[in-house]
């Protein structure tokens, strides 16, 4: 299967490399500024603003964070647990709903699609959800409050998978499996999913990121600090710091103001929130790229 590349194809490839390098640079430059600012001395930040070449470096922001190291690591643990379990369950739910919707010989497929899509637009708001989850299901202050509401399955992912099943996997494959006497479950797990690795990985990625970045569920449903995820913890810390160091709330605080390097800390909080993803991502990419390759071969 030798593939001779034409000159046109080769130059397109080089063009892609160059352009993507530039785009990636643009994408990450601001983030580098965040990292540098988290290591910048606070008064320099205030006087000179954020800079790629700060006049004075400092570890103060991280030193402040280290005081809370135990709490931070514990909330990492909570986030990791919630993200892995949630994503796994979410993938299962999403694909098993998307599959029937993708079958062109299933006469209710459009009804399902409408039902799914409708939820993307209409929502009753936080109050009825809160009432239902806490009064009927009693999940408040448990770890399930971080997993079940909102993120366990969403319409966008379902439609994405349905779309992929419908357009990228030929009906012929399903038909031949049916002739072989395979049941629907078998078809989904043994045939569709292996062929749909790219979209599964995509949905897994979207779902995982959504869980990792969520702080709202914890804000509403969790009281015990033991169950704070990392983003929730960071937002609370930042809010607290802003409250304490701004001086405008002296009335509430009985004239206390606490001196904290709030600008630097804010950047350090952002770094702490994103770092784990950056560390784990290369390992996950193995599957993403592999999925892309498998998709190519099976085609």
């Amino acid at each position: 299967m030798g593939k001779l590349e034409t000159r046109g194809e080769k130059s397109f490839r080089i063009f892609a490399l160059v352009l993507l390098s530039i785009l990636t640079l643009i994408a990450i430059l601001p983030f580098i500024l965040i990292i540098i600012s988290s290591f910048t001395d606070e008064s320099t930040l205030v006087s000179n603003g954020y800079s790629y070449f700060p006049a004075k470096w400092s570890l103060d922001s991280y030193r402040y964070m280290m005081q809370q190291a135990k709490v931070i690591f514990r909330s990492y643990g909570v986030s990791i647990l919630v993200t892995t379990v949630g994503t796994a369950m979410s993938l299962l739910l999403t694909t098993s709903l998307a599959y029937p919707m993708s079958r062109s010989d299933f006469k209710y497929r459009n009804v399902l699609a409408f039902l799914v899509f409708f939820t993307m637009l209409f929502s009753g708001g936080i109050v009825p959800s809160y009432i239902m989850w806490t009064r009927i299901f009693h999940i408040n202050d448990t770890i399930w409050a971080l997993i079940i509401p909102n993120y366990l399955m969403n319409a966008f992912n379902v439609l994405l998978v349905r779309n992929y099943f419908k357009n990228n996997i030929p009906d012929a494959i399903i038909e031949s499996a049916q002739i072989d006497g395979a049941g629907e479950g078998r078809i989904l797990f043994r045939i569709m999913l292996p062929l749909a690795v790219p979209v599964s990985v995509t949905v897994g990625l979207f779902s995982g990121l959504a869980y990792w970045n969520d702080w709202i569920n914890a804000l509403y449903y969790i009281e015990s600090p033991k169950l704070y995820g990392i983003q929730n913890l960071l937002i609370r810390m930042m809010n607290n710091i802003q409250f304490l160091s701004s001086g405008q709330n002296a009335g509430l605080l009985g004239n206390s103001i606490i001196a904290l390097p709030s600008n630097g800390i804010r950047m350090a909080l952002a770094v702490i929130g994103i770092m784990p993803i950056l560390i784990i991502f290369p390992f996950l990419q193995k599957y993403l790229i592999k999925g892309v390759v498998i998709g190519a071969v099976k085609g």
Partner: protein
Amino acid sequence: MKKGKSLLSLFLALALALTAFSGCGSKSASSGAAASGGSAETQKVVMYLITFNNIPDDYSQVTDAINKYIAEKYPDAHVALDLRLIGPADYNDKIKLAMQSGTQMDLFIPLDLQTFIAQNMCMDISSYLDQYGQDMVSMIKKDFGTDGFSTLTQNGAIYGVPINKAVVINPTLSYNKEMLDSVGVSIDDINSIWDLSDVYAKIKAKYPDVYCYAPTNQQDTYISLLLEGDDKMDRLGDTTYTGVVFGDSGKVVNLYETDQFRKYVDLMRSWYLAGYVPQDMATSTTTAPAYAQSGRLFSTYASYSGVDKQSDNSVLNQLTNTDAFGSKWISSFYMDTMSTSLAMCVSSNSKVPEAAVKLLNIVYSDEFVLNTILFGIEGEDYVKPSDHVAQFPEGLDANTVPYTAYLCNGVIGSESLQWVTTSEEDYQKKLQAIEMNKSAERSPYYGFVFDASNVVNEMTALTNVVKQYYPGLVCGSLDPDEAIPEFIKALKDAGVDTVVAEKQKQLDAWIAANQ
């Protein structure tokens, strides 16, 4: 598929870990509630308290100690406290959600008193106060004056109990003493905001990199404080300032059309053009403390409680860890209709209002209960070097001690009973500050409460218009000659005249009823 099997076992392992986790999520304070007496009559009162300290994972030992004490000392009350500490990030959301969803919440502190009362979130406790709340009522009338409950009273109904603290907060100038000396000006020469421009000119000449003034509150130069203190403006219970009264004129006007507003805006504009203030004040989130910490601030002003008219110390010194700043009052305090806006209320759908008021009475009148809430358990969380001082035990601080809520001193109970963290002398000063409540100058309309329900749509439109123009105008970055006419037109389009008329109507009725 081998891979499928291993994935499945991984998933099962994780699910197992999850079930282990679901065990340890129980509410930390729930155990404390029923501990007292075991009597079937004991009623649990849930108090949502906003705290600015760290929230411990489990503080049931504190609630248990409180309830044990209550059961012994007040056996006839049959009440127990279920304390919930909530941080400022989600306090507002949590109390609203509790009310909307029917979760039990009996006592809370509305962060926006007038709105909460208008939406019926606070229960009328006047009858309960007569029966069970006499200790706190008399304490407040003693420390504040007979009008202590006026801002919480509407048509005979009383909607909460004010936090008993020094309400008198004076607009205080904090200034860098050394810089002032070096330009040959004495603080005695500065008595009001109008004296500052000349001083700023001198400071700017000598210290070009320093900001003569930076705001304490983001995007705001606090001219509202000066309008109140110097010009005797009463906001009539509304943060948009679209309907205010000056002095005792009884006439409601749109602040933004008045000369008083214009004169302050012109002053700020002159400061802006002369470079005395940060050029991005109207949009920046950097405030005076940050500039002070980097040594680039000469002065700022804000309102603080305290008895010292003039002092070599300043609240800002707590931030810079120096004693570079001194302070002096530059205006006076004017008690207007929004002054006592911190109160503890009973939620309107509480099922145990009597128990709530009884418990609140105990919190206000019993030194042990109040200070246990603030400081925790003696020996573990604090030590008491003297009668009114509580400090962290040796080697511990606010982050490492098992329990502390000492920063809640401004939002609960009576400051006259609270212990301080510094010294006996500071405690005495606090008492003096509270004394000042009685003699503070009150607006003739103190006690008037504005009910915005007829003009809610106009208020929302006005809020947006005000947010559009106010920061730029008071921070000096907009040209008043152009911007103010635009602003006034936008306000009129949004219905400011309707709001002013409505306020006038309500004010006239209140004046007639309170002659």
